[in-house]
């Protein structure tokens, strides 16, 4: 018989740096999950992405066991890395700080396709570009989406 799921927990934690402090401690500890077991597994699975903020979705079962999936870094995190800006623009609609080009937008869209609700790369790119605009990051060059 399949194990009964008691909850899903969505955290974003730096790769290779999970420890029992918050948010992992309070989020998992209250469910009776062995936090140290989670940290050991998470750190081992993210050794190639040390320090990168990674979304992790943890399924907790009634017997206190758990499984988790690790996703690629969120679009805004990748946009900041790509644009090399610190913290976006103070006035996103007026003052653009930092920029990415459409090749970078496409690369991020391709990386995040499995996590985005998009059926085509074009719609994923459009979503990534929209997020960039919300953060005050300019997308430079001619948009391939308007052709």
């Amino acid at each position: 018989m399949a194990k009964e799921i008691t909850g899903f927990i969505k955290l974003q934690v730096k790769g290779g740096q999970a420890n029992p402090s918050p948010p992992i401690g309070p989020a998992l500890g209250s469910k009776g999950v062995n936090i140290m077991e989670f940290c050991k597994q998470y750190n081992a699975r993210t050794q190639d992405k040390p320090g990168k903020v990674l979304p992790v979705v943890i399924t907790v079962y009634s017997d206190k066991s758990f499984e988790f999936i690790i996703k690629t870094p969120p679009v805004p995190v990748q946009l900041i890395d790509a644009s090399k800006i610190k913290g976006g623009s103070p006035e996103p609609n007026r003052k653009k700080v930092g920029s990415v080009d459409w090749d970078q937008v496409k690369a991020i869209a391709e990386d995040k396709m499995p996590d985005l609700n998009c059926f085509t790369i074009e719609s994923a790119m459009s979503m990534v570009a929209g997020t960039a605009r919300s953060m005050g990051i300019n997308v430079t060059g001619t948009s391939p989406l308007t052709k």
Partner: protein
Amino acid sequence: MQYTQLLLTYSQPEVSEILIALLTEAGYEGFFEEENQLTAYIPEADFSLEVVDETLLPLQENFTINYTYQKIENQNWNALWESNFEPVYVRDKIYVRALFHEAKPEYPIELLIQPKMSFGTGHHATTAQVMAHMLDLDFTNKAILDFGCGTGILAILAKHLGAAQTIAIDNDTQCIENTIENCTLNNAEVEIALGDINLLHQSFDVILANITRNTILAFLPAIKEKLNPNGIIICSGFYEENLPAITEAAKAQGLHLEKHSVEDKWCAAVFS
């Protein structure tokens, strides 16, 4: 370490990941996402209300975001699991239990471990495998180092197996406190140090390192430097797929892979 918790609420879920990206840049270490709210954590010493306001200001035009913050007191978040865990048996020779389990004198070695958010109860395949490899070695009159000691379980086992001198070292204050507590519970005379292996000015016959792939790779030269001629290293904390990289790095230090074991994809390796 004390943390400050920043609770952000909003009605547009798409702002969640933007907040995560911007707050990460502002020094926040981890996030807990729930429906229309995000809880972000930062070491208390790094918290600044001004930085929060500066970070949120540019988003206020497109998103409505409210927040509250509070200091989080240090506590044992793992207390619920620790209050009810199963004892561990290794090769019918070692019995690892908590204070609330009954004693079983029929086991040659009984270890009492109260983990208190430190790693090392024997439940994990890495710890269990290192303990099993330790049973195959002669520790009599040897000098042992437990590098990344967690609960101190391996250092305590080394004393049980006859080690003359055992040093346990970890860079986490909480683990050091817990190792002291567990050594007292087990009457194990272990020297305990806070920091990394470079602090130590002596060499060892056996070095135990149940840490992570990256830490082992980074510290292999220092581990080799602290190893006596004919000394043994037992390392774990990595998956079987990482063994070739670790073996290669060990080879560069003149070390040879004697044997390894695998359980649930986790590997433990013995080098000499």
